């Protein structure tokens, strides 16, 4: 046992271990949370680690079509395919998205280190069996995207250690100073909300019935940056959002956002960097006022200046540095855990102490 742990320790030191990111199959639908997983894998590979995407079934729709072809070329493996040959050791890491609460339970007996990647606070308890918590299921480390979510998670699972890696917005989301078109990019978690906003707006403001709304959920990322550059306004309603990738992307493209403040207020929201409302019913009126100002060329300079402030935030460089720092810390923590266990096993008096892997 001691030799095996020593071997694992050596493997970590020599970067000879696996970091597998369990990833849901979106069947081709773009989603920022999955994009983040791919960014982490890509960056870790760049840092010389053996990182890969782990998906459940053989039939998995890769993300190249909406995230970029290069992401299809990252290492992928399927649990269905490797099945019984799925072997991990104490040196390996399994990164589990927070929505896979059931997987946390199913993987309890694996000897690898399991880390939760919690991007959405809302999903944390969904699949977690009643009466259990991350710690009771053997997980004591998580990665999340902001200090606010980290604090909220620590309130639920006080014995866990959280690390923050902010999402990245690719550099192609930048302001190209295009002439804006009277088209509104809309993104609501619930499609009914989209429908209600659009219909209410047309009914209450028929003068603006020529303004087109476009639901951007299905648009590939790089194309979305062009769309956001062209459109004059974005509308965002996602009450359970923990970060809000879409509004940040919009602002980076110089497009103001009218949005409903989510339950967990994202750290980047300020009083003046958008038109933030607490009441969804006020959104159509806010759109009408904003539209009138657009057609009359009345610019809200405060708003536009605040939006500019978003240009240098959530960059790829910033995230690369965080990925390097956080994962290095997690790997080092694992090394310390293994060393502690080796030392316990080496002392005969401690043999009765439980060994936590």
């Amino acid at each position, binding site marked *: 046992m001691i030799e095996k742990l020593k071997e694992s320790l050596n493997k970590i030191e020599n970067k000879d271990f696996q970091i597998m990111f369990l990833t849901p199959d979106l069947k081709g639908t773009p989603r920022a949370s999955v994009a983040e997983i791919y960014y982490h894998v890509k960056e870790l590979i760049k840092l010389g680690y053996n990182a890969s995407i782990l998906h459940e079934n053989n039939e998995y729709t890769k993300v190249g079509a909406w995230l970029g072809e290069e992401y299809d070329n990252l290492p992928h493996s399927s649990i269905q395919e490797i099945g019984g040959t799925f072997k991990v050791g104490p040196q390996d890491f399994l990164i589990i998205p927070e929505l896979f609460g059931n997987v946390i339970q199913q993987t309890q007996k694996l000897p690898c280190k399991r880390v939760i990647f919690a991007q959405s606070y809302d999903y944390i308890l969904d699949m977690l069996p009643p009466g259990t918590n991350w710690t009771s299921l053997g997980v004591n480390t998580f990665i999340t995207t902001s200090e606010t979510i980290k604090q909220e998670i620590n309130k639920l699972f006080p014995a866990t250690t959280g690390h923050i890696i902010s999402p990245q917005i690719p550099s192609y989301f930048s302001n190209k100073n*295009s002439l804006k078109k009277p*088209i509104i990019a809309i993104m609501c978690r619930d499609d009914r909300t989209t429908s209600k906003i659009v219909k209410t707006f047309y009914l209450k403001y028929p003068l603006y019935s020529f303004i*087109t709304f476009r639901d951007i959920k299905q648009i590939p990322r790089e194309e979305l940056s062009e769309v956001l550059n062209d459109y004059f306004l974005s509308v965002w309603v996602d009450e359970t959002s923990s970060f809000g990738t879409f509004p940040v992307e919009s602002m980076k493209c110089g497009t103001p956002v009218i949005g409903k403040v989510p339950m967990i207020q994202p750290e980047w929201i300020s009083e003046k960097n958008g038109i933030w409302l607490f009441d969804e019913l006020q959104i159509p009126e806010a759109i009408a006022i904003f539209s009138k100002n657009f057609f009359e060329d009345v610019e809200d300079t405060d708003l536009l200046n605040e939006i500019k402030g978003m240009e240098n935030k959530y960059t790829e460089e910033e995230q690369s540095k965080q990925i390097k720092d956080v994962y290095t810390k997690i790997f080092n923590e694992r090394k310390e855990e293994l060393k502690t266990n080796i030392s316990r096993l080496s002392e005969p008096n401690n043999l009765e102490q439980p060994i936590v892997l």
Partner: protein
Amino acid sequence: MEKSNISVIIPIHTVIDLDQYLPKALESVTKNTVQPDEILIVRCACPEVTEFLSGYDFGDMKKKIRIVETKKTKEFAHMVNSAVEEVKTDYFSILEFDDEYSSIWFKNAVKYIKAYPDVDVFLSHVIDVNEKNEFVGTTNEVTWSLGFVQGMTPEESFSNLGFLDLEALKTFPNFQLSGAVIKKATFEDIGGIKNNVKLSFVYEFLLRMTYNGYKVMTIPKSGYKHMNMRPYSLFWRYRNDDRYKLSQNEGKFWMQTAMKEYFFNFDREIKYEGN
């Protein structure tokens, strides 16, 4: 001040209410932060118009104004075509003397010319008012409605937004050319505005433009205030003046005529013989 490469043409065929509206129309030009390079006032040879203009104090604008006289007729199309011959810039815009530009119009027109050099006509998002200056509606904005100009794919429909095409025009004829910024070379290539199609001259012009593959788009900015049915205006006379009044059938006839005439780049003689 930035040169706009745009001239403004103001056709004047009557003195009725001219003293009331012309100062406002001219002021709307001067209020623009980007100015047109020149203003051409094109007048008919009517003595009362000649007299009015010779005694009019243009103030500081005088150096920018050129009076062009058309001897042919006092018809709108002839006046505009004559003035365009005199235009020295690459683009021009028609300002009816009872209308006004918004103060943001030329600034935006210059931006759009730069961004879309291949566009031949930039229509304005027109605010229509009645003779009491009360809001009655808007014109030209329909080009921004999804599906107004059909695309082969949804993507193409989105990229067509803002533009006008022949098929869309065949289903919806109501567009306003006043205030638009038009490429002089294209206007001349295509034969200008036709006089003989009467009230459908704007429609026929746009049909002819799009039929010949020229590009027409609406700038999504409120650029022009148009007064509808001012007493004694051209369209008011078509409806109310016994000498010019058109029956409903004749109105239809001229719109149908536009649909037949846009194949020709010259103004053919057309007679209405029905009733």
